[in-house]
């Protein structure tokens, strides 16, 4: 008998079994399609020969549960706190189970206005908590919307737990939308940039698949994973006697893996014997422990640290922080220790944006390079997220954070008297930085549009006594927050998007704010106008779920990055650059971001273009945020 025929019979058995429970149970676990009852076409006669009216579901027989209740048990076992989602029929049963059976707690359902933001919320959330939250997306179209955010998470080694609905069996799909949103191999569209994907073939297989997706997301090099939850499995009727066959997984503690003791001693010897060892670091800071660990190593070795700010790695005002004088420090190096350095090539080379694209090494030819980190573990085919190849003299694919305590111990054992004089010299090199930074920040102080330095300084004045997070990238504000504020803890600054996909900042900042809410921590986002307009609805989600965040629009009225690209091309092509605004400016009409936010029920200020008005506007907005709600301030700014 063909599979198709079998499934027809099973469906009949199931429906007939509505009056005879054991018969139902016998087929329910094999994936019999309970939801066929609700399908409008084809309507299947029941035992009495009646046809269920289209769209009308028969209630579950007494004592039965549905497959999606089991799925909720699994999500609870995985300790998933939140599930962000744009509602859709391919997971209607799961959504209903989450809010009713699960009590809408662990996971709590968050209404996302786009699947892209549903996934991006998870990035900010994971940066704060170190663990994934879930995004629940519609079959095919929802996942298609979610792809860029998944890519950002992948490129940034951030765990996000994505669940997509699907209607695997053609026999139970309704025609129209449900068929169009079904796919045989849905994960195919993201397989190059998820760590793992799985579409369990039966309800019984759901739990292992779910646990494996979780495990893959958080171990080794963390990243996004995709679990496809079939609608038939969700809507399947489960007989009480078969509940015990549905296994709920247990997740043990997950640890990071450090380098072996032999190689740790070898690097320690190299570091101790080097004249000018330099530490370069990108995505190191992932927990409360990380920053102090790096401080201890840098101080034990009296070595400078150059931070490319992929995370909060090293206290920004520490005298050994040589980020602002990276050029001369790297040229003096005879040994570079690169920690969690995905773009090692970019860290040790200059590549001017010229036709020739000539790379010039920032190191002397004899300088040796040791790379320690998990970035090589995340390497995948096809996409360029792992950045240009760069050779290290020693490549160690292990967690830098897990290795550092042992490395620092070994360095302390091999410490030399000369370290102290080196340290004094390195401190001297940064002693003038504070004054130079002040001088630079004072330029254009009174300008309107408002300078990015002024914006950062006005903001700092009002948050300096708070436990705070700036949850957005800062390079488009010329890194002023990183230069002016005091950043000592991993949660002060969350780093960059990884995949450079614009539209990352606003939603991931809301995700960070969600995680910070429970900790009573203040969350700030400074978001480009272009970035913000990719997902302006995130502020509604923040309002709806009472997620406090101060969202500042860095409103330079354009895709300024692209304006510069066009200027560059026009100059190169010798054509004049007075038309570079075409396709890059966001003006005529100017967008009134405060009005947009107010329209979503959010307190908002702006446009603020006179610097004198900025402090009071920020204060009023912060009052609202401190009461537990979001607020937005539109600041008309200098380009960078």
């Amino acid at each position: 008998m063909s599979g198709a025929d079998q499934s027809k019979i099973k469906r009949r058995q199931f429906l007939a079994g509505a009056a005879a429970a054991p018969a139902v149970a016998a087929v329910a676990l094999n994936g019999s399609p309970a939801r066929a009852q609700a399908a409008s076409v084809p309507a299947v006669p029941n035992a009495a020969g009646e046809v269920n009216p289209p769209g009308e579901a028969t209630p579950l027989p007494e004592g039965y549960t549905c497959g999606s209740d089991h799925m909720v048990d699994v999500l609870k076992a995985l300790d998933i706190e939140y599930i962000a989602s744009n509602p859709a029929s391919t997971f209607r049963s799961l959504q209903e189970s989450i809010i009713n059976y699960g009590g809408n707690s662990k996971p709590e359902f968050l209404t996302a206005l786009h699947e892209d933001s549903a996934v991006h919320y998870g990035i900010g959330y994971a940066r704060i908590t170190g663990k994934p939250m879930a995004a629940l997306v519609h079959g095919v179209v929802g996942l298609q919307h979610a792809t860029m955010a998944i890519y950002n998470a992948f490129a940034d080694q951030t765990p996000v737990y994505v669940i997509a609905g699907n209607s695997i069996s053609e026999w139970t799909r309704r025609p129209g939308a449900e068929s169009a949103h079904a796919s045989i191999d849905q994960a195919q569209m993201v397989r190059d940039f998820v760590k793992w994907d799985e579409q369990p073939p039966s309800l019984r297989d759901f739990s292992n698949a779910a646990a494996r997706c979780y495990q893959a997301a958080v171990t080794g090099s963390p990243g996004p994973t995709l679990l496809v939850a079939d609608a038939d499995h969700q809507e399947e009727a489960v007989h009480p006697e078969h509940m015990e066959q549905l296994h709920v997984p247990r997740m043990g503690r997950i640890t990071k893996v450090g380098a072996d003791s032999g190689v740790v001693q070898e690097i320690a010897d190299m570091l101790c014997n080097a004249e000018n060892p330099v530490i370069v670091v990108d995505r190191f800071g992932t927990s409360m422990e990380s920053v102090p660990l790096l401080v201890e190593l840098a101080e034990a070795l009296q070595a400078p640290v150059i931070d490319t700010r992929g995370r909060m790695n090293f206290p920004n005002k520490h005298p050994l922080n040589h980020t602002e004088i990276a050029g001369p420090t790297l040229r003096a190096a005879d040994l570079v220790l690169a920690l969690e350095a995905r773009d090692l090539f970019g860290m040790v080379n200059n590549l001017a944006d010229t036709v020739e694209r000539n790379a010039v090494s920032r190191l002397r030819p004899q300088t040796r390079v040791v790379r320690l980190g998990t970035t090589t573990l995340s390497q995948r085919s096809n996409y360029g997220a792992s950045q240009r190849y760069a050779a290290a003299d020693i490549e160690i694919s292990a967690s830098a954070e897990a290795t550092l305590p042992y490395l620092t111990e070994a360095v302390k054992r091999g410490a030399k008297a000369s370290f102290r004089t080196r340290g004094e010299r390195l401190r001297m090199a940064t002693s003038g930085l504070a004054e130079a930074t002040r001088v630079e920040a004072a330029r254009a102080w009174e300008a309107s549009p408002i300078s990015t330095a002024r914006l950062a300084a006005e903001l700092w004045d009002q948050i300096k006594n708070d436990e705070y997070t700036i949850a957005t990238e800062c390079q488009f504000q010329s890194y002023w927050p990183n230069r002016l504020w005091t950043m000592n803890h991993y949660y002060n600054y969350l780093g960059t998007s990884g995949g450079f996909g614009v539209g990352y900042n606003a939603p991931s900042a809301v995700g960070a704010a969600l995680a910070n809410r429970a900790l009573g921590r203040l969350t700030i986002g400074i978001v480009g106008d272009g970035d913000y307009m990719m997902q302006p609805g995130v502020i509604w989600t923040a309002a709806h779920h009472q997620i406090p965040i101060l969202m500042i629009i860095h409103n330079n009225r354009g895709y300024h990055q692209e304006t510069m690209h066009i200027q560059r091309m026009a100059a190169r092509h010798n054509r004049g650059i007075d038309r570079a605004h075409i396709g890059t400016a966001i003006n005529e009409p100017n967008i009134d971001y405060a009005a947009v936010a107010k329209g979503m029920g959010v307190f908002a200020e702006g446009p603020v273009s006179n610097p004198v008005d900025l402090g009071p506007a920020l204060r009023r907005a912060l009052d609202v945020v401190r009461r537990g709600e979001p607020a937005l301030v539109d600041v008309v700014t200098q380009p960078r």
Partner: protein
Amino acid sequence: MHRKTLPGFVSALLASLFFAGAAQAADAAAEDGAAVYSRSGCWGCHAYLGQGGRDGPQIAHTALSYEAFSTFVRNSTGDMPPFTARIVPDADLEKIYAYLQSIPEPPAPETLPLLQDVFSD
């Protein structure tokens, strides 16, 4: 024509001149230079008052002589694209230079309370 093609920026620049107090200080040539500066797009990487930022260094009050300034602009081989005389004629570049030199000096950082706190700890 500038108002037509660069409305946002021109109004922004005029506003910046107002707040910077440059309008009073600058002579007529320099003021014209502000318009040329905007039309020539130097602001894109050097910001509206030539203060610089992540994508270009400060060029207001440059220490370069006009000759060195012009040589750089015409012949840059690095991160700044070269601008030929066809794009920015000599007469324009002179005005840009004059404008950049005329921008009022920023306040001394020690007079700005907000910048004292930032490095206080």
